[in-house]
Each structure stands twice: as structure tokens, then as C-alpha cells.
């Protein structure tokens, strides 16, 4: 693991390992921003690693999804080929087995674009975390370009601060879940009208004491839904990376515990295959979490549209 500039020199190996793991999953600190922006209303708008990764993901989605589809749409009357074929199968899967059963045939075409955007964005943002491209860039920078690790003005050295998975940051997933929150309200409003949507939150025709309990519960549920979405995605992405790095760190910990290099190498025979297996699991988790976020968004939108009372 190549660590940029400021490796913490803690007293024990355990502290260093902990710092290293946190360093690999958290955002880069505001002391080392990639691009300096001024403060506006007291908020530092400087670009950190996760913001930069969001830009990278946006560019990747544009290149691999939006541009091929636009190109394909301009050609008339030809069967799709290559990349567009793959995209088409994903789009069809999401429309037919996620959106249509939950939202209903009437509103499919209204909400499929948003849910597809969620899916592709989260899939790419999750998946880019499994590609060690920045560590490779660090190796290139250190050993071929010969830039020292503590050079804080080098752009690539600054890139090495912080984690790669933007969706492992609670702020990113909170923003995505906020979009879901407003989507639920807008979907209900479009289907039933503004007043009727809020009336639909609770079933009508019950005895009045039940409403005293039911209305606070439903209002809480309104906020718990996006909160659970936030936590699920971010915690899954962070947790997988922590497990991976903790397994790899066992080598350093065992070597320190028994004061011998051989112990570290011996543990490597167990921990490296385990880490490889967990990486395989992580690739499944990457896809499943993108699927879960889109599925739950579709379910919540469907709950606002098709009221079962």
C-alpha cells in the first residue's frame, strides 16, 4: 500500500495500521485539497478526494453510457451492437424487473430514467473503489518520475490522500438519498395531488385514537427511509474495504507481535488468499448495493403511487 506524504508515525504498529486503514477509507483532509477554492459563506469549497472521484465517476458514466446511447439514437433503424447491446440489457432489466413491478405500468417511463441514473452512477462509484489505479499512479510517481513522498505541491501525491470510493462517504450517499426523498414526494404529488399525497400517508377510516400513534410513526418512516438508504450504501462500501485492509494488515501485526519477519510471511499465506476472496465478495457487493439502492428507490416511489389502503 502506497501512502502519500503524511504517514502517521504512531508509537505502535497497531496505531499505524489503524491510521492506515482509516486513511484508505475516509475523505482526504481539507489541509491537502486537490484544487483550492475560496470560502463562500464560511463553507470551504476546496475540492477533496471524494469530490474529485465524483467528477471522475461522472466523466466515466458520460463516456461509457451517455455518449454511446446518444450516438446510437442518432442512427436510425439499426440493431444495437457492442457496448450499446450491453447497456440495453441492463436498461431492460432495470425497467422490466425493478421499476415496472413496483411503480406500475402507468408511471414506468416517468421514473425509469431517474432510477437508471441512480443505478449507473452508484455502480460506477462503487466499482471504481475496487480498482487500485491511484496506488499504481503512486508507484509510477515515486519510482519512475522520482517525486519524493513528502512533496505536498505534486498533484499525484495529493491524489493519494484519502479513499477512492466516493459512495463510502456518508455525505455522498446522504445527497443521493435526499434525491430519493424528494422523488417520493414528487411522485406521490404527481399521481394523487399534493394534499391527497399527504393524506395517503396514513390509512383512512380508522378510529381516531389510532391516528395519534400512527401519524408520528408514518412521519418518522418518511425520514427513516432515506436515512436507511444512506447508511446501508455507505456502511457497506466502507465496511468491505476495512475488512480487506484489516486482513492485509494482519501481516504487519503478526510480524510485530512475534518480532520476526517469518511470522509475517507465514500469515501472508493465509491473509492474502483470504483478502483475494473478500475482493471477489466485494465485487458482488458492489453490484448488489447498486441494485439495492435502485430497487428500494423504486419500491418507495411505488409505495407513494400505488397506495394500498
Amino acid at each position, binding site marked *: 500500500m502506497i501512502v502519500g506524504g503524511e504517514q502517521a508515525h504512531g508509537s505502535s504498529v497497531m496505531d499505524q495500521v489503524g491510521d492506515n486503514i482509516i486513511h484508505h477509507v475516509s475523505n482526504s483532509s481539507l489541509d491537502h485539497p486537490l484544487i483550492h477554492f475560496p470560502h463562500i459563506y464560511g463553507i470551504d469549497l476546496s475540492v477533496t478526494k471524494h469530490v474529485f472521484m465524483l467528477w471522475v465517476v461522472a466523466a466515466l458514466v458520460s463516456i461509457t453510457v451517455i455518449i454511446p446511447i446518444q450516438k446510437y439514437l442518432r442512427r436510425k433503424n439499426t440493431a444495437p451492437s457492442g457496448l450499446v447491446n450491453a447497456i440495453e440489457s441492463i436498461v431492460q432489466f432495470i425497467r422490466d424487473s425493478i421499476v415496472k*413491478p413496483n411503480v406500475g405500468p402507468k408511471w414506468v417511463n416517468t421514473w425509469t430514467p431517474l432510477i437508471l441514473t441512480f443505478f449507473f452512477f452508484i455502480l460506477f462509484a462503487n466499482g471504481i473503489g475496487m480498482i487500485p489505479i491511484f496506488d499504481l499512479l503512486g508507484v509510477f510517481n515515486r519510482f519512475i518520475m522520482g517525486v519524493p513522498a513528502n512533496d505536498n505541491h505534486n498533484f499525484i501525491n495529493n491524489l493519494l490522500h484519502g479513499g477512492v470510493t466516493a459512495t463510502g462517504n456518508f455525505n455522498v450517499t446522504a445527497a443521493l438519498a435526499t434525491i430519493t426523498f424528494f422523488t417520493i414526494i414528487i411522485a406521490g404529488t404527481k399521481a394523487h395531488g399534493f394534499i391527497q399525497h399527504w393524506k395517503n400517508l396514513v390509512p383512512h377510516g380508522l378510529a381516531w385514537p389510532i391516528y395519534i400513534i400512527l401519524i408520528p410513526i408514518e412521519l418518522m418512516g418518511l425520514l427513516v427511509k432515506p436515512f*436507511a438508504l444512506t*447508511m446501508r450504501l455507505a*456502511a457497506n462500501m466502507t*465496511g468491505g474495504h476495512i475488512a480487506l485492509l484489516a486482513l492485509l494488515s494482519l501481516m504487519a501485526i503478526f510480524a510485530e507481535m512475534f518480532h520476526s519477519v517469518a511470522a509475517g510471511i507465514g500469515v501472508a499465506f493465509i491473509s492474502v488468499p483470504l483478502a483475494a476472496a473478500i475482493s471477489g465478495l466485494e465485487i458482488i457487493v458492489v453490484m448488489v448495493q447498486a441494485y439495492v439502492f435502485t430497487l*428500494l428507490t423504486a*419500491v418507495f416511489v411505488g409505495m407513494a403511487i400505488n397506495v394500498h389502503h
Partner: protein
Amino acid sequence: MEATAFMPIGFGLITIGAGLGIGKLAAAAAEGIARQPEASDKISGAVNLPLFLLEGVAILAEVFTFLMLIL
């Protein structure tokens, strides 16, 4: 002993509960598919949603425990 020292135990209990729930779901789904293989699409579709909601409960417990550790 502080009261907060027992909170991770509660979160562990939450995780056990969620695990039991997911286990029941998986068992029922496997049984249902074994009885009626042609309905496997419908069964897995019906199992997915409660599965992810239960998973969310376990993950919330994990996140809160982690936050208590670092805060």
C-alpha cells in the same frame, strides 16, 4: 460501569435478530423454490425486499457501534 458500555451488547443482539430473520427468509425461499422451481423468479423477487430491509437494520447497528467507538 457506565451505561454506554452495555450498548454494543444491544447492537449485537440486534445483529443476532437480523441474522435470524435473514436465515428464516433464506430457508423459506430455498424450500419454496425446491417445491416449485418454476416460481423461483417470483419467490426471489418477494424475498429481496425484506432481505435488504433486514440487512439495513444490521448495518445500522454496525454503524452506530462504530460511531460510538470513534466518538
